[in-house]
């Protein structure tokens, strides 16, 4: 009589020692990787909750809309908030078109020769330059050499130079994600490179390109060194809630700079103000990023292959 355990079919599925060991390894690996990914969330949640708790007494819409009062020891952050909006907007308005067009050239047109290899190398190295070095460059190039003075224009251009290589890199990645076979199909029917780019490559990489650009908002908003050297000031008096308070050739306040000054330079600041400033900075960056993600999800859903 054949017992259940000894039946040939059963025997085939009984685990060997090797089989048990691989199963154990698999479980350990999965658990370790899972814990690591959870561990990554912990500091983020900790930072945000700590900031929000400490900032709570000051947090309100009024805090964003109001101007600093009593030697910046009380009141709100409106001038800094508007300044940051200006800086980010102008710098990206400069760097996004240049970066995207440069990336289209490098990815779609450039042949593999010494000039383009040099440009590539320059882009990669420029992306690795510390922001304080960009600040010195901006000081020399825009403030003094171009005679823009300490101004929003100088600071924005410095930020633009800083974000440019990253925009080029992310745009190239987005362009490269469009399959080569699409381009070849277009060339085979006699389309020029530009016709191919306009009708196939750009429509299918636009989500990646925009995501890359929008993510640079957070970088431009967070940097302190480049604007400190070129156009951000300690204090600037503007009207409460006035959105068009600054001119391009004026200096401005900025959130990152304001956070630095109220934390270290101003005595007897109301305790929750630096934390509230940080929350506003972090919050606006997160809102922009969330918009970028939502936008990408929306475009992905319309992706056509």
């Amino acid at each position: 009589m054949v017992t259940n355990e000894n039946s040939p079919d059963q025997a085939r599925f009984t685990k060997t020692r090797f089989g048990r060991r691989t199963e154990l390894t698999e479980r350990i690996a999965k658990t370790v990787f899972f814990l690591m990914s959870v561990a990554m969330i912990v500091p983020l949640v900790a930072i945000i909750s700590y900031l929000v708790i400490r900032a709570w007494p000051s947090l309100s819409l009024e805090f964003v809309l109001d101007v600093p009062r009593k030697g910046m020891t009380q009141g709100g952050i409106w001038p800094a908030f508007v300044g940051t909006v200006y800086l980010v907007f102008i710098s990206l308005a400069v760097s996004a078109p240049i970066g995207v067009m440069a990336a289209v050239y490098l990815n779609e047109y450039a042949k593999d020769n010494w000039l383009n290899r040099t440009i590539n190398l320059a882009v990669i190295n420029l992306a690795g330059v510390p922001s304080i070095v960009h600040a010195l460059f901006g000081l020399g190039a825009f403030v003094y050499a171009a005679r823009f003075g300490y101004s929003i224009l100088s600071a924005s251009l410095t930020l633009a130079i800083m974000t440019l290589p990253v925009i080029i890199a992310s745009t190239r990645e987005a362009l490269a994600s469009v399959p080569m076979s699409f381009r070849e199909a277009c060339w085979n029917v006699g389309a020029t490179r530009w016709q191919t780019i306009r009708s196939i490559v750009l429509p299918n990489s636009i989500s990646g390109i925009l995501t890359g650009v929008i993510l640079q908002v957070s970088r431009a908003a967070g940097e302190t060194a480049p604007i400190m050297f070129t156009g951000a000031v300690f204090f600037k008096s503007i009207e409460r809630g006035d959105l068009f308070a600054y001119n391009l050739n004026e200096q401005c306040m900025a959130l990152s700079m304001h956070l630095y000054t109220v934390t270290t330079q101003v005595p007897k600041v109301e305790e929750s103000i630096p934390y509230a400033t940080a929350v506003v900075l972090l919050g606006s960056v997160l809102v922009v990023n969330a918009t970028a993600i939502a936008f990408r999800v929306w475009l992905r859903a319309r992706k056509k292959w």
Partner: protein
Amino acid sequence: MPDEKIEVRNLKLSYGPREVLHGISFDVYENEIFAVIGPAQSGKTSLLRCMNRTIDFVANARVSGTIKVDGQNVRKIGHSFFKRLAGKRPPRFSDVFELRRAVGMVAPLPVGLPLSIYDNVAFAPRASGLTRRADLDAIVEKCLRQAALWDEVKERLHSLGTKLSGGQQQRLTIARALSHQPEVLCLDEFSIAIDPVTTMRIEDVLKELRKEITIILVTNLTQQARRLADRTMFLWNGEIVELDSNEVIFSDSPKDRKTYEYVNGIFG
């Protein structure tokens, strides 16, 4: 003797230091189906890419020799600007884009562009400057009918081309290749991604098309070459082993023993 549509003379092609075509010469006649058979890596696809100059997009490719389409050397296209300025006779093709429209190409794997079915077929006419809706409609219908796809898609011309099945997409690719009214149609192993029934349907289409245009058929299926072609060229390691009419190539006694062995599946 039929007219030569394409004349290839001493064509050499190398990718960097590796030479893949070692100086081949042959003619393709007007309105014939010309099959190219041979194992992988024998330079079949590279040969096609030389003909419509898409080889230009391969960075390290070096070509020498001549390929003449209707008597014009395609390798010289685009360098004729000063000659035209000097009042020389206008050449057959004034730029490579015109050449590529005259020498159509169908890739081995179907590529539905991420556009609607209609836009897929209307892409090439639009790229060459045609904008009138009525003309485009006519071309789209004619090409889809020629590619035996019209009846299946006429109800949903504005749905995505990439959502079609593999066989349908391949026929869409053929329709797109026909949309710019080529004089020569190069098919590069068009049947590897589709089922036998669809393959037979497309083969019928090709038989129909050869009344109007010249077809170059690169294929791994020797039986397909036998069924369709007038003449067959056996390419091996970048050299022509044998080029003759189908009666000779697929007979029991082709000139070269290798041809016999390859065609009958003894080697290769």
